[in-house]
């Protein structure tokens, strides 16, 4: 039985019909010690069937460890959504439940290059000269999480200085421990600053500014 049933698949086809430019989903995977690598691989295999502009590239993590590290890939499964270039848009863990929507959004964004950010945010990003790493911790059942992930990915799309990760909390307990995640969404900025809940764009930007000042 397919992971994406007929009904979901037809919805996916409908939304991905808006794609313009080709998008590659780069999946980093390994056979052992990765609870969701296999499921994620199956999911993406099925997903790329939805539109010919969508391609899947499967990379065995063991074989490219060092190169992957340079791109910030440090846990599995990892999906990098690549368009004209790698914009720094990453998913760690399976993008299921509500996060499947966040993945579709990332694909559409990279494909159409349309980001929905305020002029103030765009101005801030244009002047940004220090690296910003956003990690948005989520669970697949959290309805408030996709907006935080989508916002982070938009910031990555709009600025070369920003890298934005969705992290599926239940698959990475050591990180949940490290960043004291007991509620989602929780956005970690440059390892040390936190935003709780589905904060609006202006609030996230304010927190990023705070993090950069303090650094």
């Amino acid at each position, binding site marked *: 039985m397919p992971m994406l049933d007929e009904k979901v698949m037809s919805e996916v086809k409908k939304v991905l019909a808006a794609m313009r430019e080709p998008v590659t989903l780069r999946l980093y995977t390994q056979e052992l010690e990765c609870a969701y690598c296999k499921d994620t691989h199956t999911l993406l295999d099925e997903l790329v069937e939805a539109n010919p502009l969508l391609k899947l590239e499967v990379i065995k993590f063991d074989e490219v460890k060092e190169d992957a590290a340079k791109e910030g890939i440090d846990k599995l499964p990892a999906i990098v959504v690549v368009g004209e270039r790698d914009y720094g848009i990453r998913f760690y863990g399976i993008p299921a439940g509500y996060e499947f929507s966040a993945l579709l959004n990332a694909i559409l964004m990279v494909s159409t290059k349309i980001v929905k950010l305020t002029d103030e945010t765009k101005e801030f990003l244009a002047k940004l000269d220090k690296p910003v790493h956003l990690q948005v911790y989520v669970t697949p059942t959290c309805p408030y999480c996709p907006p935080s992930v989508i916002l982070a990915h938009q910031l990555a799309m709009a600025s070369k200085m920003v890298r934005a990760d969705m992290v599926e909390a239940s698959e990475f307990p050591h990180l949940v421990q490290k960043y004291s995640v007991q*509620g989602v969404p*929780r956005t970690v900025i440059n390892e040390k600053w936190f935003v709780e809940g589905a904060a609006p764009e202006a609030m996230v930007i304010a927190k990023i500014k705070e993090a950069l000042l303090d650094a």
Partner: protein
Amino acid sequence: MLDFNVLIPETAEPDKLWDLIILGGGPAGLTAGIYAARYKLETLLLEKSIVSGGQLTATQWIENYPGFREPVLGKKLAADMEAQAKHFGLKVISENVQSVNLADEIKEIETDYAKYQAKTVIIATGSSPRRLGLSDEQKYAGNGVSYCSTCDAPFFKDKVVAVVGGGNTAFEEALFITKYASQLYLIHRREEFTADRIFQDKVFAEPNIKIITNSVVTGLNFDLQVGRSLNLQNTISKESSELEVDGIFIFIGNLPNTALFTQQLELDEGYVVTNRKYETNQKGVWAIGDVQKGVLRQVATAVGDGAGAAHQVNKYLVENH
């Protein structure tokens, strides 16, 4: 079991004059949208999240919505309502409203990204969880303090948690959280509970739930990740005590989401004052669902409000435009 939700934020052209703008995509707003779309009104629904359904999406099971003999998943009911509304032509976009002008003939709604105009407005902004009001509460939100069990309960697998509240939400959510937690304390400030008896019976039968009545939480000792506790005070004896927990879920009712309307609508304790036709004190503006003063706050009543208000709007537009 994995499921996959397909929700893509749409955009709406800002220059259009809409017949109706609905603020809020919970069951009340979505039902108004279904009815309005079937009246062929040009209708735009603004929802701040990309996931419509409001509090439905944060509720695990709905047991008292007619037509579902088996409990229905809140998020499934929400997704189906939205799909149904869109099927009839409702436009749903995910934008956060910054300000509104409801006084004039043409209503203006400004979001983070655009300004929209409409002949009529239905307010269905619902309510948000009430805070306990402790000084550290905000600091530990997402790190030990939670208002959403479907979001956060999995973080408390085999942990000890407290649930505060005595109403339906507290009891339903306690039953859900106890699937994860090893021990759950249900803390309530009174002796009696307002939760429906059917929930009370289930909670009392649950061996891992211990009830603490006549008690309020007065402090969070959450500085460390381990060895956390709550300060409790008995409301009768005034005695203080400490209760070891790993986290706390708070379900002590809701506050209306009406900050946008304080200068423009008649409010009472924050709730929008409406009459039996859902009319507010502004011409061309209706309010439905949880945001109204003095109503039962249920999915079943919200959808009834939605249908009723859409009917009023249609009548108004036929007569006035």
